[in-house]
């Protein structure tokens, strides 16, 4: 049944094409426009690559001063020992944000596409998209004045039961929860704020892809006696997996590069293991805090640019891994 219907559809799609093509090639002006548009699209694609290349060249060129100084020779070790806490902080914050944000975003998308009554789903969709339009400085202010104080009791509890108590009774506490939470402005709070910020991106990408699940697959699953959840597991998720991963990577990209909200929400400088007391930082925060006051051309300035390059490489690597995962799963997506 299934193959039959797709075949006929494919045929139907194909059949009117032939005369259309003949018509276009006869029409000179139309062909010219077509070529012109193709060229325009190509130029747009190349333009993106050029911009990316320029950013990469600018960062690499200006990073040299952080790795090599005339009087001292190579100082890669010094740069690495300076940069790793920020690279680690950036990745930890982004991953925490993903762990908290992605499941909720996917659940929201599922609700909108498969559970909510059609009228409500539209409204909820709009509201979720609205979240993406809030400027990050507003998220930062909210995180700083509302969320951080509200999280303090939780941090006290975590510190008490995951660090202090086991430390006293078992001799070892989890170091991630050591220390006093102070104002509650730490990288954990920042990752909660980031989780909210990446929610609309992930959920709108997922929603679009969930809606595109072939009705036939869904109906087939239901016809076999699957519950709605089983149907989603069998038909929707396999079909949507590349889209989900793309959406999550898009969110991760935002979380890695977010500056303003992190600047406002995180308090303290310097590296430490605890994620619930002030301290630790991310690459964008470090750059934003120090770039304006640093004299151009100094080693410090080059260090900050080199940090930017590190972030660039991290984000590129993350996206390449994501692409690889998507391509590996393509054949199992159920669309073929």
């Amino acid at each position, binding site marked *: 049944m299934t193959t039959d219907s797709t075949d006929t559809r494919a045929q139907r799609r194909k059949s009117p094409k032939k005369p259309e093509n003949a018509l276009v090639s006869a029409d000179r002006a139309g062909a010219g426009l077509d070529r012109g548009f193709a060229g325009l699209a190509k130029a747009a694609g190349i333009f*993106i690559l050029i911009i*990316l290349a320029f*950013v990469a060249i600018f960062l690499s060129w200006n990073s040299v001063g952080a790795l090599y100084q005339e009087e001292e020779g190579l100082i890669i070790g010094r740069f690495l020992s300076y940069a790793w806490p920020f690279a680690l902080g950036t990745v930890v914050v982004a991953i925490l944000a993903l762990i908290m944000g992605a499941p909720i975003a996917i659940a929201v998308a599922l609700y909108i596409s498969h559970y909510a009554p059609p009228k409500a789903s539209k409204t909820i969709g709009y509201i979720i998209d609205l979240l993406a339009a809030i400027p*990050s*400085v507003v998220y930062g202010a909210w995180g700083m004045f509302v969320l951080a*104080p509200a999280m303090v009791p939780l941090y006290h509890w975590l510190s008490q039961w995951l660090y202090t108590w086991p430390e006293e009774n078992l001799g070892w506490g989890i170091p991630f929860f050591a220390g006093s939470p*102070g*104002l509650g*402005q730490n990288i954990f709070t920042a990752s909660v704020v980031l989780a909210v910020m990446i929610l609309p991106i992930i959920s709108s*990408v997922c929603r*679009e*892809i969930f809606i*595109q699940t072939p009705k036939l697959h869904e109906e087939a699953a239901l016809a076999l006696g699957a519950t709605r959840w089983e149907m989603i597991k069998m038909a929707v998720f396999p079909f949507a997996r*590349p*889209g989900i991963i*793309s*959406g999550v*990577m*898009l969110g991760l*990209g*935002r979380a*890695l*590069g*977010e*500056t*303003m909200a992190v*600047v*406002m929400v995180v*308090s*303290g*400088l*310097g*590296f430490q293991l605890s994620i619930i007391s*002030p*301290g630790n930082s991310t690459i*964008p925060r470090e750059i*934003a*805090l*120090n*770039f*304006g*006051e*640093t*004299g*151009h*051309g*100094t080693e410090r300035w080059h260090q900050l640019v080199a940090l*930017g390059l590190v*972030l*660039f490489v991290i*984000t*590129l690597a993350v*996206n390449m891994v*994501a*692409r690889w995962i*998507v391509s590996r799963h*393509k054949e199992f*997506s159920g*669309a*073929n």
Partner: protein
Amino acid sequence: MKVASFGRAAAILSVASLALVACNGDDTENGDDNGTDENDTVDTDNGDDTDAEETDEDNGEASGDMDYSSLSGDLSGSGASSFQLAIQEWALEFPNLTAGVNVDYDAVGSGDGRANFLNGADSFAGSDALMSDEEFAQSQERCGENGAFHLPTAILPIAVGVNLEGVDSLVLDGETIAQIFAGEITSWDDEAIASLNDGVDLPDTAITVVHRQDSSGTTENFTDYLNQATDTWTWEADSEWPGEVSAETGDGSSGVISAAQSVDGAITYVDAQQAEDGGLTLVELEIGGETSAPSAEAAAQAVASSELRGGQAENDMGFELARATDEPGAYPIVQVAYTIWCNEYDSAEEAELAAGFAHYITSAEAQQIAADVAGAAPLNDDLISQAHEAISQISG
């Protein structure tokens, strides 16, 4: 099929988003561009047309009262945000004395301001820190062989501000301040604090240190004071707070004030005027048995008794502030905000405009404005005449 193409679209999107999300920095507020309309009548382009008659007139009389009424054109500067308040007010007042000058100041931070000045984008820079020797060498390329010079423009006392319930006056000495900020004293009823405050009922609240998280001239001056005047503080003066003794932070002056106000027992350092406006208790500094609050007079005195640093331009007025003073009643926690000017500009007109504005902002009248709006300590007469002498060297 559709999936693959959608996935690809998302892939392109996600790569494109990298470029976007990576540059999400904070925007600095522009200086207001006031009085632009007045300028339209006179066509003065700083670059090319030089009027021979205007070239020499003003340089001669720069040390006395200067006549600004023939000046017109655009003057742009950028740099430190510390005297943004003052310079905004000056930019509003100055055009009234002239035939239509438009002054534009962009508070982009000291480092960026110096870079903009050195590469010729701006006519002057505002900076909390002095130029390094490399930067001075660069300035000789832009400003002729005499290079650029610093002009002390605003002297700002830095206050140690406290938010402690039930305590509305507090005395500390340098060593105690250093121990608090280094995290060695952690409670307000500590013996070291109590012994300086007889008769004050100190609570046993924990001390929460709040410092700047962004790199700033205030931090540089405060750590310079701690480093010079105390034994406890072993870190070098730096515009970035040492990570080893990091505590709570705020972003910018307003950030540390709001952070300090949000928790009982907080202590921070911040521009005195802003600390007072923000409702913090200003700590009085004890030196040699006498105490003094951060005040304009004490700050001006601290600068007047300091030596010039020397080693750069001949008319340079960059100070080496003497912090480790044991003079009773002194208040050495001050910050000097400089403007940096060329000794030689590309055109006579730019030179004339620059000299005019430099002269104005170091005049007694403009210094009084800065005192009113920003709590700056007015330069005393000696400093003013010295500054005007330095400005008279500007040529085009």
